[in-house]
């Protein structure tokens, strides 16, 4: 089952939609060398054809609205439908970013309230909501730390990253011009404190850490880690990918983190949209506040809100306007509905679900690091390798059985990694059904591994030849492909 491209469905000669006429007389003069010389070639389709085209495309997608997404590190929780309604309210959707602050008081108050709530949840003093995504927030936080050091005449040029870190961590550090040094994980899956201490010196600007880490384990030495990094003059950056384990349980700010990034699209239920838009706010402790990108929302004693320009030490803007405001509305609605009690319950339920699933999965696959885990855990498919079955085969087998695949081959420190995060919004019945599917696959790996290699067979396409696709990339349709 496939759907032709809109360009392939195009009907040459079909007139465009009815649109307003100018209704006024005037001449628009465009110098000839600035004018388009060739006719623009876009699809020509009627509205019914367009609606059917996209309805068919929609039917080719897996989504959280349909079933379970056990995608470790991605926190695929249910997206409350009411938040979509609220994000599209006229008062938000039709607000121009260059309206006077006096005419945007509701939006500014929402941003202020959201910032206050996030400060409380993670234990920091101020938050910028400007970064548009998680990686954008990481980079923003590192720029802030870099500016802080530079303001003290300290040209620290090294960032330490655990070997279990997300790939965005070293990439964000490199984008700031930092050299990246890796710190080892110990046998228990946590940062090896001795290795860390051996790498700390006056060149280290920051340690980037997620806690719980990417194995889903709480860094129980976190206070010693923070002490060591601070002792060497470095700052601690918190990668918020795994914050879903911590709301109301404990706070990165209290652990000693100086800059904290968050994902509104993970922890705070803004939908992922098939890969964005998200939002990656960054919270900091008071000593880093002068370096935040501006503008920030300020509240006057009179209670009115304004966008305050950033000060001289600010790193400058990281995005146009206030950031992804529509995403902020959804996240704020979630926080209001959940309340402090509900957020804590969500994190506790996420931890319970993960441990429940971990116990079941560890009877089927190797789970190399001892628990309990926090909101996720990492299994390994290496015990199936004697049958020639890899993590990829398990992933595709799960797709065939109606589940999305866990994150595979990450973190890099676990061979044949299968990283599973159930979130608090899945029921026991759903998790049991997932375990049953996984059990079937493990059984198949013994009895009929070839069948597993063939999966998926009933999805819109089977396994794609990604190597060939990358060797001779075809990234677009071309008009020459149109039948004569």
């Amino acid at each position, binding site marked *: 089952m496939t759907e032709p491209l809109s360009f392939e469905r195009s009907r040459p000669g079909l007139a465009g939609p009815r649109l307003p006429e100018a209704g006024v007389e005037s001449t628009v003069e465009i110098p000839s060398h600035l004018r388009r010389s060739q006719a623009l070639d876009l699809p020509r389709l009627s509205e019914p054809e*367009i609606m059917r085209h996209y309805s068919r495309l929609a039917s080719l997608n897996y989504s959280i609205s349909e079933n379970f997404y056990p995608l470790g590190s991605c926190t695929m929780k249910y997206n409350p439908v009411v938040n979509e309604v609220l994000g599209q309210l006229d008062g*938000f959707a039709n607000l121009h970013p260059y309206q006077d602050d006096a005419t945007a008081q509701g939006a500014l108050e929402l941003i202020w309230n959201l910032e206050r709530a996030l400060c409380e949840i993670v234990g920091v003093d101020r938050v910028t909501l400007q970064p548009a995504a998680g990686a954008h927030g990481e980079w923003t936080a590192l720029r802030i730390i870099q500016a802080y050091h530079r303001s003290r005449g300290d040209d620290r040029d090294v960032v330490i990253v655990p070997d279990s870190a997300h790939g965005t961590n070293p990439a964000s550090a490199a984008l700031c011009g930092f050299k990246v040094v890796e710190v080892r994980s110990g046998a228990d899956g946590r940062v090896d404190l001795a290795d860390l201490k051996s790498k700390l010196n006056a060149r280290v600007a920051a340690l980037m850490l997620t806690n719980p880490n990417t194995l889903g384990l709480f860094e129980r030495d976190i206070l010693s880690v923070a002490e060591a990094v601070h002792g060497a003059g470095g700052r601690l950056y918190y990668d918020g990918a795994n914050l879903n384990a911590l709301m109301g349980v404990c706070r990165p700010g209290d652990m000693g983190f100086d800059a904290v990034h968050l994902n509104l699209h993970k922890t705070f239920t803004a939908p992922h949209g098939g890969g964005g838009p998200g939002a990656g706010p960054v919270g900091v402790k008071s000593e880093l506040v002068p370096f935040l990108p501006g503008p920030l929302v300020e509240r006057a004693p009179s209670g009115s809100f304004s966008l305050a320009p950033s000060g001289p030490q600010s790193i400058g803007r990281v995005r146009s306007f206030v950031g992804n405001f529509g995403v902020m509305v959804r996240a704020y609605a979630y926080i209001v509905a959940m309340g402090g009690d509900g957020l804590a319950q969500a994190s506790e339920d996420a931890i319970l679900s993960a441990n429940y699933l971990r116990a079941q999965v560890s009877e089927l696959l190797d789970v190399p690091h001892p628990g309990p885990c926090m909101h996720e855990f990492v299994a390994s498919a290496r015990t199936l390798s004697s049958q020639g079955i890899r993590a990829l085969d398990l992933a595709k087998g799960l797709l065939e059985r109606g589940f999305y695949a866990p994150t595979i081959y990450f973190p890099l420190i676990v061979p044949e990694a299968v990283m599973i995060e159930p979130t608090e919004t899945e029921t026991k019945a759903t998790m049991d059904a997932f375990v049953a599917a996984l059990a079937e696959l493990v059984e198949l790996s013994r009895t009929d591994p070839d069948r597993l290699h063939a999966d998926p067979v009933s999805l819109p396409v089977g396994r794609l030849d990604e190597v060939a696709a990358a060797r001779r990339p075809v990234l677009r349709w071309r008009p020459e492909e149109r039948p004569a």
Partner: protein
Amino acid sequence: MLGRLGAESIDDLLVDVPPRLRLPALGLPAGRSEFETVAQISALAARNRVFADRLCFIGGGVYRRFIPAAVAAVTSKPEFYTAYTPYQPEASQGTLQSIYEFQTLIAQLTGMDAANASLYDGATALAEAAMMATVVTGRHEVLVAGRIHPEYLEVLRTYAGGRGILVREQGELGELTAAVIFQQPDFLGLLENAPELTERAHQAGALAVACVDPISLALLAPPGQYGADIAVGEGQQLGLALSYGGPHVGFIACREELIRRLPGRLVGQALDGRGRRGFTLTLTAREQHIRREKATSNICTNHSLCALAASVYLTYMGPDGLRQVAEVSATRAHALAERLQGVPGVTAAFPGRPFLYEFPLRIDPERLRAADLNRRGILAGLDVGRWYPDLEGVYTFCCTEVNDPAAIDELVVALGSPLS
């Protein structure tokens, strides 16, 4: 479930958290019902003043335009908006194909060889293009020609600052120049001599980076026509609400030779074992999850749902619709400009400079005060002097297909109000 784990309470699962870190409770209000949540959030929305579409003459990078109902009908399908980044292609063909179509639409519109799956916004797209140019050329300066969006310039400086790249706003092109960056039309709405800027860049061995308005490309020469190397822009006008500035969508497109230097996601065609065509994320060897600190960028997502909206919009409009949108906007803007210049105390800020549908006027501040536009429900006249000191007293206006002739009359009458 606790029983299955042999645990008595959640505390048994939190043994690794040092007790002194445990939080007794969050200092936030208790949860609320959906009804109360809606009431609370709606009250905030109601505290914003929304100006009627037809009376919104303000642009500055974000524009009121007609959005066909089909756009929201598609983007509100949960199969699209609740899906994750399409890591597993067999279960993500809807998202992947829609991105492939977006890449094609942007490539067609800009006249470039290839486009990526989208970026966060126009500002970050421009900054990414500049960083890409420094890598491609091995040079460490970029020259900004003319008036680009001041917030884009600020974002560019933030990106450049971390990497020791110099952003210059004046001076000559030289051996250190990696790129000449310009905006067409510029921030004020005026047309730049894009072909000449491109040629000058190339003569100095630099890349030409064009930041373009996608609607304008129905009429104006696309960057591919004058040989630009990288084209970027903001796609908000393609079916996205103002939303106080976001989420919107950035795009980036380039020449064939530069494809492997592009930041962000790319979707490509691939075949399955039975020879069926499918789509998948490709050229991932550029990206952070493979390359880590050697990646072309740290970006690991895009603005997929916004790109989908833009694709539906462009497909709905087709070539004729897009041209009509651009022509109607330009015709009305020229009519408005002529009539406003008939008002005493209002003059063209740059007489004779061609523009499309946004333009700058020099206005006596007394005149604006007397007009009291906001009180009349009119949003018009963006004070660009707040960014450019040499443009104090200059305001930009724009027209689109939503500003009907009667709305133009209202604005002209308002600005022509007698001075008290």
